[in-house]
């Protein structure tokens, strides 16, 4: 993709050239894009937070931006939601330029920021009425709408309580509800499930699926590979402000190539020994799993997996579980960045 540098002065001309650029690039199947960015850049002082991001997000899909802490996910979303002006590059949301037509963009998108953007001093209901009023509803309609949403999001009982008394899950649901006071055409969700327990996370996932089923394009960021895998139709892996891979999760897994061998040992004490054998037989790096009995390694050719089993049996290491599967997104991440994704997940949950 061509990247287009645009600074304040040359904006109009670069938009023209981008216009031409787009028409040239469009293939018939890709015409219906909700979001398109071209060489998007943003720096804070010396930090190049976003460094030439190109995205093409089809309308009506759930699109995942996956990346570790500091990758530039929030900065990208904030630019698309017209909260930050890009240093360079162009982006359109439903055909509206995010700088030139910021007001039109704001009229079609909703943002649920990384940190719950609700007023803690107000009640849940007041928060929703506030947003309703700011969207142009009459007081009466804003109240009706608030009550509908509170019921649908399971917040009826807490409606008249101050948000500061809410649990993390309730707060998140309220925050998402506030983004749905009018159904947006594009919804930005910045790490919607970070810090939530599994049950609340499931609820938020259900909400996101429902929103998508209603035809809203969802752009969500996450550090959880699992989440991206389950929710997103397509995803972009972003690291250090760059998109380092893009595709469906199946495509990404396939791109990493090899299948992955997962082994669980009956005797965890012999993991070291087993690891050495795997290394010898396969000639690849072997990873220890989080459980003490688990090992994994990528297998260049499937038939070599059988050789591993024989080699382990020869020295009397008993295997409890042996499976060969497509690479998980964790492994994709490792292969793409040279870093395991676990690091970031731990840091984040700390």
């Amino acid at each position, binding site marked *: 993709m061509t990247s287009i540098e645009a600074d304040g002065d040359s904006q109009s001309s670069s938009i023209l050239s981008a216009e031409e650029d787009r028409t040239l690039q469009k293939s018939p199947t890709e015409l219906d894009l909700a979001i398109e960015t071209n060489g998007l850049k943003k720096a804070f002082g010396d930090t190049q937070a976003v460094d030439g991001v190109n995205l093409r997000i089809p309308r009506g899909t759930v699109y995942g931006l996956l990346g570790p802490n500091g990758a530039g996910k929030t900065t990208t979303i904030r630019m698309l*939601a*017209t*909260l*930050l*002006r890009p240093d360079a590059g162009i982006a359109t949301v439903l055909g509206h330029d995010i700088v030139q037509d*910021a*007001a039109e963009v*704001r*009229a079609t*998108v*909703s*943002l649920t*920021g*990384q*940190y*719950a*953007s*609700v*007023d*803690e*001093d*107000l*009640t849940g209901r*007041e928060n929703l009425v*506030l*947003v309703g*009023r*700011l*969207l*142009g*509803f*009459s007081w009466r*309609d804003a109240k009706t*709408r608030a009550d*509908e949403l509170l*019921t*649908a*999001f*399971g*917040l009826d*009982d*807490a409606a008249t309580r101050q948000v500061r*008394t809410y*649990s993390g*899950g*309730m707060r998140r649901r309220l925050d998402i509800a506030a983004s*749905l*006071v*009018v*159904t947006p055409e594009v919804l930005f969700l910045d790490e919607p499930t970070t810090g939530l327990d599994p*049950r*609340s996370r*499931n*609820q938020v996932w*259900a*909400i996101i699926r*429902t929103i998508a*089923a*209603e035809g*809203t394009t969802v752009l969500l960021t996450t550090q959880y590979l699992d989440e991206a895998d389950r929710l997103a139709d397509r995803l972009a892996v972003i690291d250090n402000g760059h998109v380092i891979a893009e595709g469906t999760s199946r495509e990404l897994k396939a791109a990493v190539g090899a299948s992955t061998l997962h082994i669980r040992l009956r005797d965890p004490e012999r993991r070291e020994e087993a690891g050495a054998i795997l290394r010898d037989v396969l000639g690849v790096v072997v990873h220890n799993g989080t459980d003490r009995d688990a090992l994994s390694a990528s297998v260049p050719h499937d038939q070599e997996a059988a050789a591993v089993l024989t080699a382990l049996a020869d020295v009397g290491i008993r295997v409890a579980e042996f499976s060969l599967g497509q690479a998980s997104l964790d492994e994709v991440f490792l292969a793409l960045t040279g870093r395991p994704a676990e690091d970031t997940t731990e840091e984040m949950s700390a």
Partner: protein
Amino acid sequence: MSSETTRPPTVVEEELGGVLSRIERPPRPGPVSASITLGWRALLKIKHVPFQLFDVTAFPLMTTVLFTFLFGGALAGSPREYIQFLLPGILVQAIVFITVYTGVGLNTDIDKGLFDRFQSLPIWQPAPLVGALLGDVLRYSMAAVMVVGLGVVLGFRPEAGLVGVLFALALVLVFAFSLSWIWIVVGLLVDTPESVMTSSFLLLFPLTFVSNIFVDPATMPTWLQTVVRVNPVTHLVDASRGLMHGGVALADVMWVLVASAVLVAVFAPLSLYMYHKER
């Protein structure tokens, strides 16, 4: 913090689908409507956290009581006489100090991500600032009523009556509104609400103490008298005393109005510029 209720999952997907598909987008609200809505939010905050009012008025209320009884006799012959002199000044000090909360509140909203929500809505973009100021002016009025009320209990008897007090209040509010723009700029500039607070005291302590609030400047060294005389707070206090007790000097009122106009002329555009700079 209370935890989540123990009921089974509460999000009903079918119902949610219905709620989501139903809604038509209303026309965008006008600037006035958006600002008023955001002012309403400020009111709700006072309702839910009434302590914030007391928080900022506690200091002036305390000084009123202490100074009246501690120094009243020595400075003015009797506490009752001193409070006639002190109260208009204390009112000014109280309201001038409260203006900081404009910046603190704004900075907190930005910090918490609430501003991201407001700014991503299709509203007239300065509405969050204007709305906050509307709410603040209301907050200032309530604090003013508390200070004057306490004064009356302690023996304050304005010679010009209620009308004089109301005029004085109006003038104080005009100045406070104008001064608030400084804190909006500071609130947009610094990183934490605490730094807004700290930096404000650097300005507010000299501004209120190097004035005629507590004592007649006649006893001060000449150089200090000069500083006191150019301080707009001095003129505001003189004007308030004049309005409350009769015999106001038009020059003082003009001084205050001009100072207010200058503050707004400088800091309002500056804050709007800073507000839009990133976008």
